[in-house]
């Protein structure tokens, strides 16, 4: 089974435009998605897509605090663990 990071990277590749990053390039885990130029509409859709991919209900106020892929992975792994 793919790791959380691999599944998250696939979601990012398919759904987020990160300035200066080509699809498939490694993702910096400490990169703030907002600082990387991701729009608010893409972020909100991404929130829903993460919930669907990992079969989790992440409240909006919790997702808003998860600024980086690393934050998201830690949250998803903790919730699954």
């Amino acid at each position, binding site marked *: 089974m793919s790791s959380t990071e691999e599944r998250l990277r696939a979601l990012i590749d398919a*759904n987020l*435009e990160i*300035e*200066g990053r080509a699809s498939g390039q490694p993702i910096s885990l400490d*990169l*703030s998605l*907002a*600082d*990387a*130029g991701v*729009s*608010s*509409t*893409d*972020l*909100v*859709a991404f*929130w*829903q*897509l993460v919930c669907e991919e990992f079969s989790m209900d992440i*409240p*909006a*106020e919790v*997702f*808003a*605090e998860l600024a980086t892929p690393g934050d998201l992975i830690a949250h998803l792994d903790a919730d699954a663990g």
Partner: protein
Amino acid sequence: MNVACPPAVQSGGWWQPFAAFDGVAVLHVDLAPDALNEQRAWAWLDPAERQRADQFRHGGAKRQYVLCRSALRSLLCDALSCRNEQLAFRASKHGKPSAFVGGSKSAFGFNVSHGGRHGLIALAPDGTVGVDVEERSAPRNLDVLVDTVLSPGERAEVMAAAGDEKLRLFLNLWTMKEALSKARGVGMSMDVSGFEIPHGMLRGTRGGVFCFPDVPDLTWALHNVGTDDFAAAVACTTQAVCDAS
């Protein structure tokens, strides 16, 4: 409606007055690449803001931040009669900034949004304000967004719209909901599918009065200020009575 006069605002190198109502002034900030404007804007920033700007790894987001923050500094210095070095900002838990002059918190309300080549700054001397702007381009996951951020009634209206009207209607609703959640100071931490935009505004009325279901005693004047180029909305506190949805 609040009848206070909006603050007098001046044009700058990259911003100009855009709208005024209910004691609120709205400025448009031109975020197109311009090396001279960006150099002039950089000079307005304090050391912490320059460090923040350098955290943006690529040009677009950094340019948006630098041009909007510098315009905000210039406008607030005029409005609060202070020097740039006296002005500082601190953010609330959910990221909404307040202005401080000489270490004292100012009650002057303001809010900033940017989308693509367009920034908007709303100034409300006597109240609380939120603003949102989005370029009229299709988000990657429009159907996911429709399902996520709209109420069932709003969703039905958008899904019944044909062609470009579907995107236009969605972006109008999105910016109105964002302006309201930013005015309230909760931003993206709020699930905005839990409230509905006043029905008349769904059908094209440019202004309305809104109350959050969980805070019925506080009313907000809501304005659709979008153009053909961008969707945009402003929400500010008002004494008016809430519209029936």
